[in-house]
């Protein structure tokens, strides 16, 4: 007696079709989600830049959220009249950026100290910051006073304020 392979029943075919449809739907949903996530990340990146990086970025600097790390130039600190904020210059070995910061500056804020400010560059030529951080990390050694800072040191400085 010959063995006959049973024909797939109608419900089996249906089930397989449903399964294929579900897999396809999930794949489309995953792709859509991926696209949304990628767009979301792209719109919300925070760049860690030195004044030199910021100048080098040119027009790209406007509008992006930036964490700018550098040294406070000696004698540049002014209180912003009518507010609790301050303005000052942040410099590294290659460039200087004028920063307008809102909010009360932290206790340790003074001339010649490493700072990280978060905010955006305006077309008016100054950096509007809503967050002013002085390194809290005891591992971080401040560069000697007046010593022009290089990229490596600033990288360390910016890292030291992550997670605060």
């Amino acid at each position: 007696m010959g063995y006959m392979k049973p024909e797939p029943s109608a419900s089996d075919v249906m089930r397989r079709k449903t399964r294929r449809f579900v897999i396809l739907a999930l794949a489309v949903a995953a792709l859509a989600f991926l696209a949304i996530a990628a767009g979301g990340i792209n719109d919300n990146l925070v760049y860690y830049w030195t004044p030199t990086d910021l100048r080098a970025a040119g027009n790209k600097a406007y509008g992006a959220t930036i964490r700018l790390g550098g040294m406070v130039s000696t004698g540049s600190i002014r209180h912003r009249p009518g507010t609790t904020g301050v303005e000052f210059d942040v410099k590294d070995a290659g460039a200087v950026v004028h920063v307008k910061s809102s909010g009360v500056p932290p206790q340790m804020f003074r001339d010649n100290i490493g700072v990280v400010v978060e905010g955006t560059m305006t077309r008016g030529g100054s950096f509007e910051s809503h967050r002013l951080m002085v390194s809290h990390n005891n591992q971080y050694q401040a560069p000697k006073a007046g010593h022009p800072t290089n990229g490596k040191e600033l990288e360390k400085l910016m890292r030291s304020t992550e997670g605060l």
Partner: protein
Amino acid sequence: MIATAALGRLLILGALLVSTAGALLGFASGAKRSDEGLRWSKRLAYAFGALMLLATLVMEHALLTHDFSVSYVAHVGSRSVPVWVTIVSLWSSLEGSILFWGLVLGIYIAAATRFSSRGNEESMPYAIGTWLACGAFFSFLIAGPANPFLTISPAPLDGPGPNPLLQNHVLMVAHPPLLYLGYVGMTIPFGFAVAALLRGKIGPTLIRAMRNSLLLSWIFLSIAIMLGGWWAYEVLGWGGYWAWDPVENASLLPWLTATAALHSAMVMQRRGVLKGWTLTLVQASFLLTVLGTFMTRSGVFNSVHSFTQSAIGPTILVFLAAVLIGSVTLLALRIDTLENDGRIDAPVSREGTFLINNLLLVLFTFTVLVGTVFPLVVEAVNGKQMSVGRPYFDSMVVPLGVALLFLLGIGPALPWGRAAREDIRRALLPPIVGGAALTVLGVVFGARNPWTIVTLFAGGYALQVTIVQLAKLRHSRRSVGAYVIHLGVAIAVVAIAISSTMRVQREVVLQQGQSATIGAYTVTFTGTEERSEPHRTSSIARIGVTKNGRAVTTLEPRMNHYEMMREPIGTPDVHSTIGGDLYISIASLEPNRAGLLLIVTPLVSWIWLAVLMMAAGGVIALVRLPRMTPLPALRREGSGEGLAV
């Protein structure tokens, strides 16, 4: 007499030896089904636990006796810090924390070997083998790249003490151990999952062992995440509890997949489906704890958690890669051996909502994971530093969270299996009353943000469903626990929505005697005070607080100066009430002038309490309480209406 450091090294080498032998023996005796092999694997598992315990005791002894010839003590010890700080110094820096990790792992392995063996004799060798393989890896870390027991000669007379930011608050005692209990605990269900795949079979006793161990670490992880947020709130001074910081995300990721796994395990238990999927989630939870360890301990993200740049990063990365490749290979080769013995009949059913729950939790995990890892990948590729800003996480996660909250209301209202349309309507319509009530209440109190209002509705809906279910007292103990967890989740999500969208913040500079108002509060800067303790000196701003004209309290935010620190560390002070918190932190302080950050946040304390409620629910579901009163009718397992059996 043998030196303390050498004794510690000896114990760790012993642990390395025992765990390596036990791992090999475990897998071998699993393949050969050897009873004798299983017996010896168990002994080696206990021996590993004992050696880790001894090594930790040796380290604590060295810390307490200020034996600075031991490298770790020289690194974090100090004669001038209080005893409690000395004790918890064990987990205040890299080497000690890895040793502590080994201790927790040892205890877990010994306990799981002792309490999960019955009924799982065929799986245990593989499980013990997997656990001890992890044990061997951590023994290797302690013996090699992160050795806390190096000898320092000549021994220094005193040490710098632990990181001041960590000495600054007593929550430091509780947060790290609980996080470790949660993180390391994921090793145990992972071992069971590997065993199930290697055997090609997962039966009721193994499911129970896996779920219980998963639930246990989920409980610890929940509390740890909450304490981490609370600590950030009480110590860091910016007035928030969650910043989507990589280290915070690292603790959240395995929690999300574990939550998904706890739910899919229920479907597996009831309907005989989703076996491979559940095991995948359990493995993912363990992998994410290893990834989290890599991110927090290797120095790729600098924060209060990452201590110094260390050599253990690459080692952990190799371990992560090995576990990942092993898990994926195992799943690919063995997943077909797990036969589904049931199916899901109707999409609109309890199990249907479990599927959506799993999908949403996985998307949630994926969102957070991508946002966290992306900057690392970019930096590895082109060396540019960047991070992903908070708006990304908020905008992605809020809709997912609200959808999950809705599901938390809909799921338990629906019955298992196929249900008549009329029954479904009767189950889903009444809770709309609860949703509407909470929404109205919120709007009356000033909620305007659309997402907050949607959250309030979903929260009210879920609360009504959960409370109605809890009121039906015929549930099994496990379901009561599950509903208590749900109650906590609903309260927590609503409190998070309210506290993050309805907080008011002001920065002021006050001269002595001057006042400022925020919300219903008036704060007056009455003066400063200096206070010195052995390990620090504090400058305190005294702030009188009145509410609607009545004096309520005096707050004392302070700046703490530690001897070994260049910068002072601010500690905010908080006036907590059931309705909300007044939070004051110092930006700058001079004798008669204070720059202050004032924040009024509604319902913050509810978050901490709600998470404790979740943990309590987990404990109720986990602990086998002696039955006080006989249940009206003994139900066959799997026939109750509860969330779980």
